[in-house]
């Protein structure tokens, strides 16, 4: 994989090629093929330069905003309007120059992209100020994001794509706060999100092993989690838990399937999904997670409402499909315990809905809530043990300890949640603590034996 290639080793190998050809060890064609194979690795610009150039451009942009906003007391509206467009025109001239003359320079592309996007925001804000135009922050963000997304594609800026994704998360919050109704329609998030997907696919097929592609995948996963959170709030069904279980499992499985690694370690995307599954399982192990709102109805819904419900079904279906489509003869690489999370959650949801709500119980609580929560507790325990054993098997201390943390979190949750005596709680902590010690001792012994 290109991403994990040691650059110093590549440089050494390239230096050796002429000698190897001269000695007749490899043919000139082979040498050419090796050169081409590692070409992309060497031509990659130092990521530090890119970051510095981008920060520089952002600072210049911010400086221009402050200068313009605070030093034009005596100018007429017309004069201000002309000045407002100047930074934008300069930024656009620079984008044009970069496209024509510096198209292969990544620091140029990234820095100019940030400058242009900042200039658009400055122009909109200052025109608003000059003419006392008072849209909401969410409206401003939406226009800004839509005007910025083509720049991500034109200048092929992954940093810009990550910032765009953070922008759509900010839009979600601004939209929620800015409107006076509970759970306003967040569905435009998905339009904004879909706009970045082709860019991710381009990056993925070009260089799936690179750090930038991984970083973009992570930010996308985080944006998806926020988007789904707001969507479940808007959909007003009891399917939120299943939808989240589906999303986390889908992220985990995508990490394993689409970012394969040669060693036993997990790709960062799969790791993120795994952590998400663990946290979701703990949250769903509380009985209050299964107090059904019973707001769900199959009657007339708005178009956006229907899409929201469809999205809640989409992620669990994708997760199940990812498991089912895996060819049977291939060795299953993923954790079965993690992969069945959406199915277990769906079963728990079914159980929670079996009993009618009883008047004697508190609001939304059904007599089946306890059974559903008990099922999730058993599942979380199985997941913890599975991660622990996989960690020990693959000699990964981090993974083994994550399994233990999961079991400990489950134990702690139940100690605070239930009315157990102090003696029982104390014994429970001792058992979990001993588990930590024994597992770590086992792992270190195994490592020492392997080293010897």
């Amino acid at each position, binding site marked *: 994989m290109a991403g994990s290639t040691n650059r110093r080793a590549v440089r050494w190998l390239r230096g050796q090629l002429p000698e190897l050809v001269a000695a007749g060890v490899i043919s000139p064609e082979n040498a050419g093929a090796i050169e081409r194979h590692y070409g992309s690795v060497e031509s990659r610009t130092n990521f530090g330069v890119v970051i510095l150039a981008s920060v520089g451009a952002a600072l210049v942009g911010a400086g221009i*905003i402050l200068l313009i*906003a*605070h030093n*034009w*007391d005596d100018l007429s509206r017309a004069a201000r*309007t002309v000045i*407002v*467009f100047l930074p*934008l*025109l300069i930024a*656009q001239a620079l*984008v*044009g120059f970069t*496209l*024509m003359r510096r*198209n292969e320079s990544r620091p140029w592309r990234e820095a100019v992209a940030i400058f*242009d996007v900042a200039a*658009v925001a400055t*122009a*909109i*804000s*200052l*025109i*608003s*100020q*000059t*003419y*006392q*135009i*008072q849209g909401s922050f969410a409206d401003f963000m939406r*226009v800004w994001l839509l*005007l910025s997304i*083509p*720049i991500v594609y*034109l200048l092929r800026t992954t940093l810009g794509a990550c910032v765009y994704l953070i922008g759509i998360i900010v839009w979600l919050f601004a939209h929620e706060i800015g*409107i*006076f*109704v509970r759970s306003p329609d967040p569905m435009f998030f998905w339009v904004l999100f879909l706009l970045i997907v082709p860019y991710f696919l381009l990056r993925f097929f070009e260089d799936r092993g690179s750090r930038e592609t991984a970083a973009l995948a992570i930010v996308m996963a985080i944006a998806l989690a926020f988007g789904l959170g707001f969507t479940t709030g808007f959909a007003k069904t009891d399917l939120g838990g299943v939808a989240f279980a589906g999303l986390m499992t889908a992220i985990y499985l995508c990490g394993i399937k689409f970012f394969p690694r040669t060693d036993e370690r997990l790709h960062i995307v799969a790791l993120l999904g795994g952590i998400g599954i663990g946290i979701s399982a703990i949250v769903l192990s509380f009985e209050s997670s299964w107090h059904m709102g019973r707001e769900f109805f199959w009657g007339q819904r708005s178009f956006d409402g229907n899409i929201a419900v469809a999205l809640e079904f989409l992620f669990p279906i994708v997760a199940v499909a990812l498991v089912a489509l895996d060819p049977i003869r291939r060795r299953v690489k993923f954790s079965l315990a993690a992969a069945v999370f959406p199915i277990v959650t769906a079963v728990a949801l079914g159980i929670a809905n079996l009993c009618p709500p009883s008047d004697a119980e508190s609001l939304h609580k059904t007599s089946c809530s306890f059974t559903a929560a008990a099922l999730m507790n058993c599942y979380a325990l199985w997941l913890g043990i599975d991660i622990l054993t996989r960690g020990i098997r693959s000699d990964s201390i981090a993974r083994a300890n994550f399994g233990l943390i999961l079991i400990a979190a489950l134990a702690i949750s139940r100690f605070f949640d239930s009315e157990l005596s102090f003696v029982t709680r104390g014994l429970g902590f001792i058992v979990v603590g001993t588990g930590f010690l024994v597992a770590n001792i086992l792992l270190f012994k195994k490592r020492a034996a392997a080293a010897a």
Partner: protein
Amino acid sequence: MKNIRLAIFILVALAQLSVPALMAWTRVQTLAYGRVWKFKTAPIDPEDAVRGRYVMLRLDAEDFTQSEQLKSIDSIYAILKEGPDGFAQVDHLSPSPVPADSAMKVEPGGWWQERQHIVFPFRYFWLTEKSAPQAEKAYQENSRRGQQNAYVTVRIRNGDAALEQLYIDNKTLVEYLRAQQSEKK
């Protein structure tokens, strides 16, 4: 490939320029041809890092009597009328902007004991950095109970409302501050 990319960029650049340009153009039209309305204000002055400084407006007309709570939340227009004191009042709420020179789009707020609160599309009156602290002081002196001398003028055209001027003691803010300065000298 390079030419296609450049052609797309030209379209994007035009879009980036047209958004602020259109915003300014619509507002210039409303300010030039819109009907003038006066609103009594109760401003305060916090700070906004991105947009310089502004006076936060609270308008008397934003609260009015209405027997029923608002049901729909999409596109609500406040239809204005002139009160006996010459200041604008909300006559009623309507789903359509008719008549066009006295209707403006508003956001619904809370309803309590037959009083409906709505939010007008102008919450801030932006100021230059230099005049903001003086403006705040001037407002405080002119918006005490019994001495309410501050109001804003708004122009309305085709349902678009443009904030025009903040008046203190019947002078524009700039004139008022200038008069204060010369009095001190």
